[in-house]
C-alpha cells in the first residue's frame, strides 16, 4: 500500500489499524491459550502484535526511516514492559490480588518506566 492508497484517509487508516491490530492480537492470544505451561503461554503476552500492525502502516504511510525511528523507541517500551510484567507477576503471586485490578493499576508504571528510559537514552 502506498501513501495514495486506502491508508491515506484518516478514517481508512484508523479502521485498518483497528481491524488488522485486533486480528493479529487475537492470533497471538489464541496461540497463548493453547500453550502449556502457563509461564510459557505468558511469552505471547509480550508478542509484537501491536508493533507488526503499527510498523506496517507506518512504512506504508511515512516510509522506512520513520518506522525505524519508532522501532528504536520501542526498545524502551519493551524495557518498560519488563518492569511492568515482572512487578505484576510478583504482586499477583505474593499478595494474591485481583489480576485485572493489579495489571490495570500498574499500567502507568509501564508508561513512566518507558518514558524515563527513553528520556535518559535520548539526552
Amino acid at each position, binding site marked *: 500500500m502506498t501513501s495514495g492508497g486506502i491508508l491515506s484517509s484518516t478514517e481508512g487508516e484508523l479502521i485498518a489499524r483497528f481491524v488488522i491490530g485486533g486480528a493479529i492480537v487475537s492470533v497471538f492470544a489464541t496461540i497463548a491459550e493453547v500453550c502449556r505451561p502457563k509461564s510459557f503461554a505468558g511469552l505471547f503476552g509480550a*508478542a509484537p502484535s501491536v508493533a507488526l500492525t*503499527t510498523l506496517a502502516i507506518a512504512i506504508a504511510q511515512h516510509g522506512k526511516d520513520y*518506522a525505524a525511528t519508532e522501532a*528504536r523507541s520501542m526498545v524502551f517500551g519493551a524495557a518498560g514492559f519488563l518492569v511492568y510484567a515482572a512487578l505484576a507477576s510478583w504482586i499477583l*503471586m505474593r499478595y494474591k490480588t485481583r489480576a485485572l485490578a493489579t495489571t490495570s493499576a500498574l499500567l502507568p508504571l509501564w508508561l513512566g518506566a518507558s518514558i524515563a528510559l527513553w528520556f535518559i537514552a535520548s539526552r
Partner: protein
Amino acid sequence: MMVQAKLESLKGIKLHEWAVRFFFGGTVCVLAGLVARRFGPEIGGLFLAFPAIFPAGASMVEAHEKKHKARVGLDGTNRGRTVAGLDAAGAALGSFGLAGFAITCRVCLPHLGTGAVFVSATVVWAVLSVSAWLLRKSRIFRNMRGRRTTLNAFRNP
C-alpha cells in the same frame, strides 16, 4: 515440564472473550497511531510495546483457573491469581524477545525489504523469548531461587 498445545482449551473460551481481545488489540493499535501522529514517532514508538491485552488476558486466565477448580468443588481464587502471576512472569521473559524484535527492525529496516524484516524480527522475538524461558527454567537458575515463592512457582507451574 514439556511445552504442550492443548487445543481443547479453546472450547472453553466464550464469544465475548474473543471479542474483548479483538477490541483491546484494535484499540491499542489505533491509540499507538494517534500518539505517533500527535507526538511524533519517537514517543509513538514506545506504544509499540504497550501491554495491549495484558490486563484482559490476565483476568481471563484467573477466571478460567477459578472455574476449573470450581468444577471439582474447590475455591480456585488463590490458584487463579497465582496462574495469572505465572502468565505475567512469562510475559516479563517475553519482553526480552520484544526488545530483540525492535532492535532487529531498527537495524534492518533501512537495508532490507519489509517482509524480510518482519519475518526476521519475529524469528528473533521467538528465539529470544523461548531462550529466556528455557534459561529461567534451567538448573542454574533453579539453584539460585531458594525459597522465594514467586520463583519457586516456576518449578511446578
